[in-house]
């Protein structure tokens, strides 16, 4: 079934080694003569590029195999073996993980190259690239892992790197707090993931705890446990991929450098949850209720985040809520059992969202770290390359045909409609319209009209080519990636869906051509309406609005963060504080100190007998002798 190859283990190894090496270099030189930035830049890109080359090799190897047996595996070493649980540090390359591998390493390499320019001048240049390589290595472990436990290693690793990179500008306390928030909220999700894994192991783990064994044994799992596992694993996904209720960390995570936002919080880490559901498609396909819950939570998150995105003023926050919203789409896709549609949207979203983030980074870089869109304007004259690429990304995000986003989003909505999930489809169409609106609101406010801050405008210039070339490459991807999964109605072959089929337990819905046309038509109409409203409000330049009523409520993100703080965080802190102040001194410290006090007391009590007069000591002796003779004379009788 699988072939064993040795180079699979090298794919995550190269970036990890790079991280260690760059990290050591940074640690040993940061207080002495600094190495030139070029050195770090080149070293940092070696790992990701090599991994991309190996990923291509994996792709070629898989293509050479017949479709049913496209599995390459590699067991690096046995990690541990306890009772029935035997875990190897093993890697599995099948069509699904190969697809993920390709775009993760490709976009990862591009963003590393972009960062060489963006992070120039930062005093922790080396540390940044060490963390980025570490992240890429962990993400590759996650994608390539041959079982839930190895995936969890990568899962935790990317969570750690997310924290390290969000708090990268650590002089500002707010950034550190944002990193904390990301890590802690992630952790709550991870608890769900671990519980899910445990239940899964309890159910069917005794005969091997890797994907292939689980897939063959899945029919032995009781339905109740299967539902529990699905829901618990999804809790983990809500944490990692920012769905309701654990999405609150992602907007705050924009405190990190923009390449971090592009790589981690748009293209790769946040899609890990979707990847996980797709990986466990053999599990979710059998539990329709879990799929429905996943789809509904996904679509509701999409709606909520789109509402928030329509009112944000920070360019990165608009994109962050957009990411949450698109992730909701992906979960809706895998929830209605259209796993390949969801993964395809992951694939296209990686391109255009990374493109939009890097473009935003370019704008921020040009305006010297100004992020408020109401201080921008008219930049299309000054930054043509950025403008052009961002327009392409915006059309892709909004779902305008023939850009990539249209095909992937449409596939999801069509699957929802074809499997009878009318509510999800309807909300999906509404959110598509809202997406178009907020995306082009951002584009028009930033690039069109009159500049709102003359001074910043004068100094703006387009980014250096080390930053614009990745933008162009990503734009090409955002333009043409859609054609990889062209549905039959347009004359295509659905290449990606067929490629992914051996990895997923998917049943493609058969729907009439009428349904397809309704779906496509609704998407296009929604896009057009959204675009029109945005153009009419902002196309000719508009002043900064003041928000009242519902708009103000949405601008403040429905006060969800404040509610979490009041209902969960403060009581938790109060419990901790009361334990520290009340329980610890009295319950845990008191007996320990009490014992020592008891001994001191006993000592002081016995000190009474040491009077210092020898006569009294002689009396003690005689008393003892007298007592002894009393006792002995009893026994004599």
């Amino acid at each position, binding site marked *: 079934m699988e072939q064993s190859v040795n180079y699979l283990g090298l794919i995550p190894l190269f970036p990890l080694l790079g991280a260690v090496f760059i990290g050591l270099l940074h640690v040993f030189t940061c207080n002495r003569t600094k190495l030139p930035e070029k050195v770090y830049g080149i070293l940092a890109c070696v790992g990701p590029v090599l991994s991309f080359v190996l990923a291509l090799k994996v792709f070629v190897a898989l293509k050479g195999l017949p479709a049913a047996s496209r599995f390459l595996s590699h067991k690096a070493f046995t990690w541990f073996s306890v009772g029935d649980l035997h875990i190897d540090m093993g890697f599995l390359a099948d069509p699904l993980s190969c697809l993920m591998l390709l775009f993760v390493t490709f976009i990862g390499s591009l963003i590393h190259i972009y960062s060489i320019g963006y992070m120039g001048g930062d005093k922790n240049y080396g540390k940044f690239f060490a963390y980025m390589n570490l992240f890429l290595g962990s993400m590759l472990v996650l994608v390539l892992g041959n079982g839930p436990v190895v995936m969890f290693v990568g899962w935790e690793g990317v969570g750690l790197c997310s924290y390290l990179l969000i708090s990268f500008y650590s002089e500002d306390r707010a950034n550190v707090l944002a990193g904390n928030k990301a890590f802690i909220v992630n952790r709550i999700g991870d608890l769900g993931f671990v519980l899910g894994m445990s239940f899964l192991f309890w159910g069917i783990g005794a005969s091997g705890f890797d994907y292939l064994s689980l897939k063959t044994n899945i029919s032995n799992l009781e339905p109740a446990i299967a539902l529990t596992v699905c829901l618990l694993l999804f809790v983990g996904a809500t944490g990692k991929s920012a769905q309701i209720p654990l999405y609150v960390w992602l907007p705050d995570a924009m405190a990190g450098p923009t390449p971090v936002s592009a790589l981690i919080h748009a293209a790769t880490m946040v899609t890990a949850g979707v990847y996980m559901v797709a990986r466990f498609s053999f599990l979710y396909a059998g539990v329709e209720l879990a799929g429905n819950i996943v789809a509904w939570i996904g679509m509701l998150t999409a709606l909520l985040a789109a509402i928030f995105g329509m009112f944000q003023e920070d360019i990165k926050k608009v994109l962050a809520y957009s990411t949450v919203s698109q992730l909701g789409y992906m979960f809706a896709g895998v929830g209605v059992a259209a796993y390949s549609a969801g993964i395809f949207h992951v694939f296209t979203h990686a391109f255009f969202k990374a493109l939009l983030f890097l473009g935003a980074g370019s704008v921020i870089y040009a305006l010297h770290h100004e992020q408020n869109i109401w201080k921008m304007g008219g930049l299309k004259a000054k930054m043509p390359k950025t403008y052009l690429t961002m327009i392409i990304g915006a059309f892709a995000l909004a779902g305008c045909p023939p850009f990539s986003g249209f095909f992937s989003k449409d596939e999801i909505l069509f699957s929802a409609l074809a499997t009878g999930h009318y509510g999800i489809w309807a909300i999906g169409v509404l959110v598509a319209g809202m997406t178009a609106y907020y995306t082009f609101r951002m584009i028009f406010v930033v690039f069109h009209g009159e500049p709102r801050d003359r001074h910043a405008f004068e100094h703006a210039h387009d980014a250096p080519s080390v930053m614009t070339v990745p933008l162009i490459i990503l734009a090409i991807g955002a333009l043409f990636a859609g054609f990889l999964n062209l549905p039959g109605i347009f004359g295509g072959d659905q290449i990606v869906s067929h490629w992914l089929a051996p990895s997923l337990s998917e049943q493609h819905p058969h729907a009439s051509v009428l349904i397809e046309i309704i779906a496509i038509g609704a998407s296009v109409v929604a896009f057009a309406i959204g675009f029109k409203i945005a153009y009419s409000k902002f196309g000719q330049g508009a002043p900064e609005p003041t928000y009242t009523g519902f708009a103000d409520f949405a601008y403040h993100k429905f006060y969800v963060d404040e509610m979490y703080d009041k209902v969960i965080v403060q009581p938790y802190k109060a419990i901790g504080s009361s334990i520290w102040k009340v329980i610890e001194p009295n319950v845990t410290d008191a007996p320990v100190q009490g014992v020592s006090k008891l001994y001191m007391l006993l000592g002081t009590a016995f000190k009474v007998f040491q009077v210092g007069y020898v006569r009294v000591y002689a009396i003690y002796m005689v008393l003892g002798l007298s007592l002894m003779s009393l006792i002995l*004379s009893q026994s004599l009788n």
Partner: protein
Amino acid sequence: MFADGLFIGFAVLAVLGAVGLVLFRHPMNGAMSFVVTLISLAGLYALLSAKLIFALQLIVYAGAIMSLIVFIIMFLNIQPSDLPQEETKLLYILGGSVVVFPIGLFLAKIVKSLPAHSTEIIGHNFGGVKEVGLLLFRDWLVPFEIVSILLLVSLVGAVILAGKRGTTK
């Protein structure tokens, strides 16, 4: 019969002397009554046919040790103010007797269980110098030598303890 009467007399004197020792305030009075006790004890030894011990008791104990004690008592020139004020003496003695009573009772019980034996005076081959000497220099030679070293040590110690100190106070 005559022996019985002697025994009772000596015993009463011994006990009275001992009581006097314990009760008298001035140590000189106590020393004198102690001497009475020692001499009656010597008589008791004689009644037990212990000729040598009888002589040694009188020579060593009553003669040497007591004279040493009396000499020191007189040497220190004790004034009534030097003596401790023992107001609670009687109380302590009563308490002490109560504490000591069980010990005595226990010992008495043990003694009661011993077989009886006559105490007739033996003249020959018992208690004389020859018999004690034979035993002393044959079976008990080593303890004898050690005791002589002990006496030497105590002699040296007494000289050092009570002698005039050169440099120290």
